[in-house]
């Protein structure tokens, strides 16, 4: 009997340890993706810089090509690339690296994160940096990299919302890319759906497109100090109802289809296999979409709200930032400058991240000739520049959690588990709680 009890305890202890290890191991499971650019190893580099970035497969390829061009131009600097995969995974890894004090020397930054990273002293102030030529970049674009008077990231490209659509299908309904109101757009979608029998658009409900909707009512996602939501409940309800009506008509897919989409322009996106015919998303996506699809795509400015203010804004696609603890700030600046201003780097990078910020690179790209989707992207950005209003300030820290809560709420409404009214009310209360408790 005693013997038996001893075994129980031993096994129970073992079970506890196993359970503990299982949980503890989850965090470390993302393996390191080291040295894609090890091809230069035999040239005995004097300095090795690490460079972290995110993106899809195409963005990875073009970035590695730009890195190669840099190493060719500066044989004494070796760039160790750390491709972080998609956005979320990249920031998962980066936040861990920053906590451990070993983030990459040069990192791709995002508008939603740059403020937090800069305020915690993780980014190098590039104001007055000698190695980077900022004269090619319009001051209004550069402005987004300033936080509390310091320059903590240089925007690498600009992006704006657009409607990407199947040109032939929409032509049948008499639509040729002009900017229309939300009401007109819904009528066009219903017509396209009746003519083709397909979904006329993806169900593009998300926190950011709602932000665009709110701006058209003169409201914003957050109030100026980022301590509360900045829109009325009726605004959110009207947005949810707009999409609910389109779902009821069959003009956009049901929740069971939308919930399986992993990423825009991904094979899970019904737009790619032609099951749905339009998508409201960032304009740079047209390059990815067109590389996956054979049907010619059109591009237009997204719908407007009659009588409301202009909601369209230009967003810095991403930033190039330098880690404040880098050992080689000069070389890192050299690399950032190369990515921004060098023509061969610009040609390698293309328009996959949006329209390049450097006027030199833009001119060179246009001179060298653009592909059709690239030309469309250029044209749309020009149109947008004429009407766009300033971007909202970077969102407060709990934004990511609120973003996800919003997605959960939208899904519950799509599945018919909640009405728009219930969903909006509950979501707004939770989000305001998060904002007041500072992210916890």
């Amino acid at each position, binding site marked *: 009997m005693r*013997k038996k009890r001893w075994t129980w305890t031993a096994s129970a202890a073992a079970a506890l340890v*196993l359970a503990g290890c299982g*949980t*503890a191991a989850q*965090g470390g499971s993302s393996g390191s993706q080291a040295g894609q650019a090890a091809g230069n190893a035999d040239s005995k580099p004097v300095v090795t810089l690490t460079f972290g970035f995110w993106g899809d497969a195409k963005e990875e390829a073009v970035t590695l090509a730009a890195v190669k061009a840099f190493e060719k131009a500066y044989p004494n600097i070796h760039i160790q690339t750390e491709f972080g995969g998609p956005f979320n995974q990249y920031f998962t890894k980066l936040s861990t690296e*920053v906590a451990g004090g070993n983030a990459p020397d040069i990192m791709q930054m995002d508008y939603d994160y740059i403020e937090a990273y800069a305020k*915690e002293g993780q980014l190098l102030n590039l104001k007055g940096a000698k190695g980077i030529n900022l004269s090619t970049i319009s001051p209004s674009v550069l402005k987004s990299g300033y936080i509390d008077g310091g320059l903590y990231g240089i925007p690498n490209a600009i992006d704006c919302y657009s409607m990407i659509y199947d040109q032939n299908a929409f032509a049948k309904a008499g639509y040729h890319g002009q900017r229309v109101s939300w009401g007109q757009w819904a009528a066009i979608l219903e017509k396209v759906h009746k003519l083709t029998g397909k979904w006329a658009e993806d169900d593009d409900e998300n926190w950011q497109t709602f932000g665009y909707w709110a701006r058209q009512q003169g409201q914003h996602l957050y109030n100026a100090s980022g301590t509360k939501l900045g829109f009325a409940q009726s605004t959110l309800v009207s947005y949810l109802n707009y999409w609910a009506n389109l779902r009821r008509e069959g003009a956009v897919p049901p929740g*069971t289809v939308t919930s399986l989409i992993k990423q825009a322009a991904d094979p899970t996106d019904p737009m790619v296999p032609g099951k749905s015919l339009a998508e409201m998303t960032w304009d740079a996506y047209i390059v990815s979409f067109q590389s996956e699809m054979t049907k010619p795509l059109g591009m237009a400015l997204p719908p407007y709200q009659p009588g409301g203010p202009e909601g369209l804004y230009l967003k810095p696609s991403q930033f190039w930032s330098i880690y404040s603890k880098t050992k080689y700030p000069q070389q890192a600046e050299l690399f950032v400058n190369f990515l921004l201003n060098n023509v061969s780097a610009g040609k390698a990078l293309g328009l996959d991240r949006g329209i390049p910020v450097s006027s030199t690179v833009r001119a060179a790209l246009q001179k060298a000739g653009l592909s059709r989707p690239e030309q469309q992207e250029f044209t749309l950005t020009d149109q947008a520049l004429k009407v766009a209003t300033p971007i909202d300030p970077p969102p407060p820290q709990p934004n990511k959690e609120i973003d996800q809560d919003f997605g959960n709420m939208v*899904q519950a409404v799509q599945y018919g588990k909640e009405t728009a009214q219930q969903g909006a009310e509950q979501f707004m209360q939770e989000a305001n709680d998060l904002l007041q408790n500072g992210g*916890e």
Partner: protein
Amino acid sequence: MTSPRTGPGATPGHSGKRGDRVAVATSTKANVQANGEAAKAVRPRNEKVAYLFLSPWIFGLVVFSLGPILVSLYLSFTNYNLLQPPKWIGLENYVHMFTQSQLFATSLVDTLEYILISVPIKMVVALAIALLLSLEVKGIGVYRTVYYVPSLIGTSVAVAYLWQQMFGPDGLINKGLALVGIHGPNWLAEPRTALFTLAMLQAWQFGSAMMIFVAGLKQIPESLYEAAIVDGAGRLYRFFRITIPMLSPVIFFNLIMSIINGFTQFTQGYIVTDGGPLNATLFFALYLYEEAFNFQNMGYASALAWFLLVLVGVLTFLVFRFGSRYVYYES
């Protein structure tokens, strides 16, 4: 997975080793010089050598497991977003967990449901196939390997993607069903079927449980069956009166391991469904991961981890407490 000997059935082995160590300790000094004599004489040096060989493991345990585990206990009482230093907030994380968080309850229910579906299926399948594989057939080793393969690859990301494709709206499963005239559901998009689909993926990895069953079956003395046959016992009677009782320690061990395994499930929910639809597959470990790495609530996530540890500990204890009366130990 270790050999079946580490299960509750391994008692004699353990106590034997303990006895040895007592003997060794008392005879240490006397035998230091006695080199080539009895085997006894070499043992004391071996003990030090053993620790030497163990040291990388002990080092690893302390630095990479025990250290982080204790740090996470500390962090569970703090607000820590990775960028700023942790701030002590006492029990706030635990209070939030039990009183304010909806997703906490959702994820717990999802996980329990998942375990309730997947563990029984996995156990029955593992035992059934183990019975088949304990037959003496030519090439039995090959069969055993083949059936073990899902356990090796089942937790991999690639298989999760494969599963996603198979159960997609136009996936292999629905195409197969269409052949016999059934319009299959949209497996991963309906809250009910999504969890079931993932439970099947878990049950499919029955390999290690099966191998342990096979080893357990081998331990049952043939004489018992022979005696039963002589007494006129049928197949079913022999299975329920001999096989199951004799196998009970192994069943028990497999049950506990499967439950623990179920609680730490992560990859499948992360890759195949990303917790959806409607949070139906938001496993506890996935919820914890999101809080920690997506939302940078490291302190709260550490509290979740400790809750999981205690929960699994308590459940394991309960299973031992109430399950063991059905377990037959030979000693």
